[in-house]
């Protein structure tokens, strides 16, 4: 069973349907026990780093993620769900904004991208490590991105990179934790294949 962590981000319905195409049962949950024990946990995320962390902490999601990693249970962060795995984030860009703390699975922070037009919105290609299992069969495909912030330093075991104004981390495979800056659940057939690659590894 795959659990999608419900901590207040909007569109979980299509994510549920997308993950269900892998043949697994998929539940949307904020329940600690269900989220901890699921074969795979998906941490989605829309909005800002700060609002996401606030929502995550309110259901104890940060501790659920850390505990799952301690138990080597597969967890997949998507978009802001990837960004909050870092130590720090700097959204939103208000004058009074100070860096907010993330879950801290990886060191470093996410920062505003250096590009004339933001958000980075649309389909972009990625540069994939040849040992990647996540991108097996779809290394040459495009994926759907929507974000203005990104991590630019390498973390984890395997990285996929993309480029928009600057080079940034498009995905990380790091033992039990996997993360994509793009939205596989919105990336058409390539995204569904990536989801299948992940669920097959559970």
């Amino acid at each position, binding site marked *: 069973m795959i659990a999608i962590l419900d901590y207040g981000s909007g569109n979980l319905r299509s994510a549920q349907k997308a993950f269900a195409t892998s043949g697994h049962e998929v539940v949307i949950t904020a329940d600690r026990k269900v989220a901890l024990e699921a074969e795979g946990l998906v941490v989605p995320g*829309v909005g800002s780093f700060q609002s996401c962390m606030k929502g995550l902490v309110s259901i104890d999601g940060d501790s659920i993620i850390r505990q799952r990693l301690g138990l080597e249970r597969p967890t997949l962060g998507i978009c802001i769900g990837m960004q909050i795995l870092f130590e720090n984030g700097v959204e939103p860009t208000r004058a009074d904004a100070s860096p907010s703390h993330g879950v801290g699975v990886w060191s470093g922070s996410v920062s505003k991208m250096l590009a004339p037009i933001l*958000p980075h919105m649309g389909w*972009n290609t990625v540069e994939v490590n040849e040992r990647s299992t996540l991108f097996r069969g779809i290394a040459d495909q495009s994926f759907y991105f929507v974000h203005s912030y990104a991590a630019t330093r390498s973390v984890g075991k395997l990285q996929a990179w993309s480029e928009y104004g600057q080079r940034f981390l498009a995905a990380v495979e790091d033992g039990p934790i996997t993360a994509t800056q793009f939205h596989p659940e919105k990336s058409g*057939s390539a995204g569904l294949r990536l989801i299948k690659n992940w669920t097959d590894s559970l």
Partner: protein
Amino acid sequence: MTLSVRIIPCLDVTDGRVVKGVNFTNLIDAGDPVEMASLYNKEGADELTFLDISASSSGHEMTLDVIRKCAEEVFIPLTVGGGIRSVSDVDQLLRAGADKVSINTAAITRPELIAEIADRFGSQVLVLSVDARRANTDSGFEVTTHGGREGTRMDALTWVGRACSLGVGEILLNSMDADGTRAGYDIGMIKAVRAVTSVPLIASGGAGSLDDFAAALNAGADALLAASVFHFGIHRIGDVKRYLGSAGYCVREATTA
């Protein structure tokens, strides 16, 4: 690695059916929205936009149902606009399966709505739909409401600038003069709006020939929205993408799976 230009078919939906007219009038039935969405996805649409033009609350309910069904079958971004007046309207649409919402009249009536939606859900869910026409304002472009039927005397560029500072994530620029005519996008309007905003810009209204799509990109659009040329089979999405690809633009190839 380059970001692809986006081709976005727009489906005007009323009472659960897709319709299309010229200059927002003379509506003709153009098909079942879920079937059309699925077909466009297979043909390589990069996103889909639904514009709910239902006048009644039962029509809006039917649109929510359309969105729910689409979100179960089509795994590309869905934008929904029409009749959105509050944060709770947005919440309802996102929960039905929309990824983005576009707002128009309600934001003109009460601009704070932009900040309220952006604060709650993030700017990336919020598309400002600007129905503009050539008129005697500072920039020569005026914002209209009610599907282009009413002028506001508000300058379109001033409005875009203000809305961006309030937190919209994207601009959908619809030329009321060009809408449905297939005589080409309003290139001057695209250039003018591009110059005042740093969020992605979707050009809409007037797509006819394949050259029209390239001209809008050349004027600074990041994405191209069209309705009648796709609904009535004048161009297939694949044809537009092949043409743009051969013209040197980066396009995503449709994958069949």
